[in-house]
């Protein structure tokens, strides 16, 4: 069964959205689909950091942009 995630992109990028992810997809491939460079974000699954080559499971996901300053 393909996992369902509640996804939020912060800061100030998107409201919470519910996404159905293809079974076996990794966090890295999810970022690719969303056209987000993996060097610029942290991915938190239920508040905990995850390795990007891990498989996406049903959870609350937060994609956190890290760049600060300028």
């Amino acid at each position: 069964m393909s996992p369902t995630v509640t996804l939020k992109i912060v800061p100030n990028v998107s409201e919470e959205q519910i996404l159905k992810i293809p079974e076996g997809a990794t966090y890295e491939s999810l970022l690719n689909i969303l056209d987000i460079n993996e060097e610029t974000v942290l991915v938190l699954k239920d508040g905990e950091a995850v390795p990007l080559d891990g498989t996406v499971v049903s959870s609350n996901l937060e994609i956190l942009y890290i760049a600060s300053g300028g």
Partner: protein
Amino acid sequence: MDDRIILIYILWNFYIVDVFEGTLVRTRCDKSYIGSCLLIYQGRLSMSIKCMKCNRDAIIYQKYSGMHLCRKHFIEDVERKVKLTIRQNFRIGKNETLVVALSGGKDSSVVLHILHKIFHQRRDLEIIAISIDEGICGYREHNIEHAKALAQELGVRHIIRSFRDEYGTTMDELAAKDRVYGTCSYCGVLRKSLLNKIAMELDGTKLVTGHNLDDEAQTILMNHLGGDVERMIRLAPPRALEGLVLRAKPLRNIPEKEVALYALLNNMLVEFERCPYSHEALRGEVRKMLNKFEVGHPGTKYSLIRGFDKMVGVLAKDYPQVTLSKCRVCGEACTGDLCQACNLLGRG
């Protein structure tokens, strides 16, 4: 609820609950069904990726090193690299005063946290944090509050100075004026000058900044793109110069992403607000290009700074270190008779 507790509950009651999808369906079933469910369950449990150094769940995959690391070993890895960088580039002797430029963002917070962790038992060392309020409304105030809280928590002396008090203007005012250069040029030059001035006043022996691997790799690439060899040499691990406090960048071997993760794990994660003027910087374009390269060719950022560190010794022979004089207006160390800060402010 912990998965294992749910598993025990299942065995006890001969019920199977769909714990994986978070639904509440509970079905009474026979032993053979439970057996097959357990196999699936064990398979799913083993799906979490483990740390290469222990059996805990990994929180990061470092593509450039091929390592999966758990929280504990990731923190150890970062701190090990910082200690190595200090030992190789910015050796800290006895009775030093380390002046840390603390903006309150993730990088400077992490560098202060780690320096304090490494050196807080050294009674002969003093760590002082300094924050500069550039006067960027809606951006800097939050970071300064965070800087104050962190310094207080660590018991580190903290000094706050502002562009307004020092230069009689703010970045918001400078940004609104007709100007020759981008806002980041004004901000960078004025901040560096003020940081050095305060560090000199405090008899600082090192001026520590939170520049990370991404910052360094971007700067090297920008200097290459601009053909600016002299500026590139100034980036090299520092040498002592009269009038300038020695710069130290303990995070220069830590990728920005790992600095952010370290901050998150140590509850120092601040809101990653972007400076309202940062869109003017060429750095943004270089950052984008480098990040794309890093994904396609992991280790590119490290390669850039390693290659640079090797080249710089050779280059320095053709580009000897300039002698510094004092600015005729403010007295700060500079290469001409007027420093860049005074030049930008139209003084003299």
